[in-house]
């Protein structure tokens, strides 16, 4: 009985955060661009979330006649489904975790691999040259960066000896892993940005030459699902970074552990928005080249050095 409340609570909070991120992103982006964001609708402009959600509900939810109907409908469901599934392994507080899997980290990597399907299926089902190009670029970018997302986390796994996220948080009691694995953190964060295809890696969607990329043909709630899926992805990567490198729910005791987790996650979400406000978008081939030629050697070097130091300490 206790567990069902955790599950429902996590689901409720996550969907609200994904919607609230609409407001957060618009206001933070505006503040960093020397202007005020929406501040008229409701106190501090918070009703803009309601306005956006209602707008998406009222839009015509049209499946193009030339599109592959069932795949077209399934693609947004895939993205939201996989991201929500990835949240089951994250420990929000000492005993609030939906599923304390022994292979938690592997499960997260598997789910993000499945998330690539959403882009591929969305672009393919749209039956449209430009969507297909956007989907192809998106898929190759995500697959490339997934390789080192997994490898960058292996350093942490080596130091902890377990894939279980609860154990990883517990192992950071004395020192957060950001101190011992700074390179791993940087590479994991960059790979995470590429996974959620946010700026500066948003080739699949904000291409002005590909119109809107893989979700050009989507409207109404299906587009809303892609949108929510992207915001949930941001929350997921922030939560994973906090859990693995920044101590999860650990912190001085004047705040409850859940509050520490929320604060740290929110700081990383703000960092995602800062990246969107500040960095230009690299060209597609520069992006992929950066991934394979710079980040992959770095992550392998990180793994080598971590392994060597771990062996030497254990001696």
């Amino acid at each position, binding site marked *: 009985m206790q567990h069902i409340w955790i599950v429902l609570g996590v689901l409720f909070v996550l969907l609200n955060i994904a919607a609230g991120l609409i407001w957060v992103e618009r206001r933070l982006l505006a503040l960093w661009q020397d*202007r*005020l964001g929406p501040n008229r609708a409701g106190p501090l402009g918070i009703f803009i979330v309601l306005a956006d959600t209602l707008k998406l509900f009222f839009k015509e939810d049209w499946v193009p006649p030339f599109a592959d109907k069932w795949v077209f409908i399934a693609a947004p469901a895939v993205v939201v489904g996989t991201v929500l599934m990835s949240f089951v392994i994250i420990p929000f507080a000492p005993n609030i975790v939906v599923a304390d899997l022994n292979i938690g980290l592997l499960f997260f990597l598997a789910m993000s691999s499945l998330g690539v399907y959403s882009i591929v299926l969305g672009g393919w089902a749209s039956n449209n040259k430009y969507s297909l190009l956007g989907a192809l670029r998106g898929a190759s970018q995500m697959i490339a960066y997934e390789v080192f997302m997994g490898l960058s986390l292996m350093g942490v796994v080596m130091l902890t000896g377990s894939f279980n996220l609860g154990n990883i948080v517990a192992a950071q009691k004395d020192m957060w892993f950001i101190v011992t694995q700074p390179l791993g953190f940087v590479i994991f964060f960059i790979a995470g940005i590429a996974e959620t295809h946010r700026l500066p890696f948003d080739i699949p969607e904000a291409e002005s030459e590909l119109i809107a990329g893989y979700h050009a043909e989507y409207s109404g709630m299906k587009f809303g699902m892609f949108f929510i899926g992207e915001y949930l992805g941001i929350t997921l990567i922030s939560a994973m970074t906090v859990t693995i490198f920044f101590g999860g729910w650990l912190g001085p005791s004047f705040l409850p552990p859940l509050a520490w987790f929320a604060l740290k996650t929110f700081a990383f979400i703000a960092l995602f928005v*800062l990246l969107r406000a*500040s*960095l230009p978008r690299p060209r597609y081939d520069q992006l992929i080249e950066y991934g394979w030629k710079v980040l992959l050697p770095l992550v392998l070097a990180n793994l080598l050095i971590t392994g060597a130091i771990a062996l030497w300490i254990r001696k």
Partner: protein
Amino acid sequence: MFSHLRTMWLVFLHLFHKKATIQYPEEKIKLHPRWRGRIVLTRDPDGGERCVGCYLCAAACPVDCIALQATEDENGRRYPEFFRINFSRCIFCGYCEEACPTYAIQLIPDFEMAEYKRQDLVFEKEDLLINSEGKYPGYNFYKVAGMDAGVKSKGAGETEDPAVDVHSLLP
């Protein structure tokens, strides 16, 4: 990588800069005095209407939004019987203000004239006439014109010579 981090830091500092947004309607935009906004009909320093119904503004208007009819009062002073401006057509170019010989019609820096019905945008003389001299204070056309319209007699104007008696035999 360092340039990226520097960019992010500099953009982050923008959080503390002054924002460029003007929060209308609590704050208003500063307009200069010759900003071409709403059209008004002004009065002269003695309180009479400046407009003499010469139709020059209606002729100058590029979109024909001014309609008026001139008439005379018992002193011979001309004034508009009705004066109508259709603000849904007006382009606020200011040609009528340039054409007016008596500084009657003027454009003032006011733009808050939004209405719900298009018919409410047709302003009549009672909506246009204001109790002020507008942008050009101290000018009364009838004080420098030659004729006698109840303001001054012939020859008594500000830059006038005394009138010649056309009925006497002397040159």
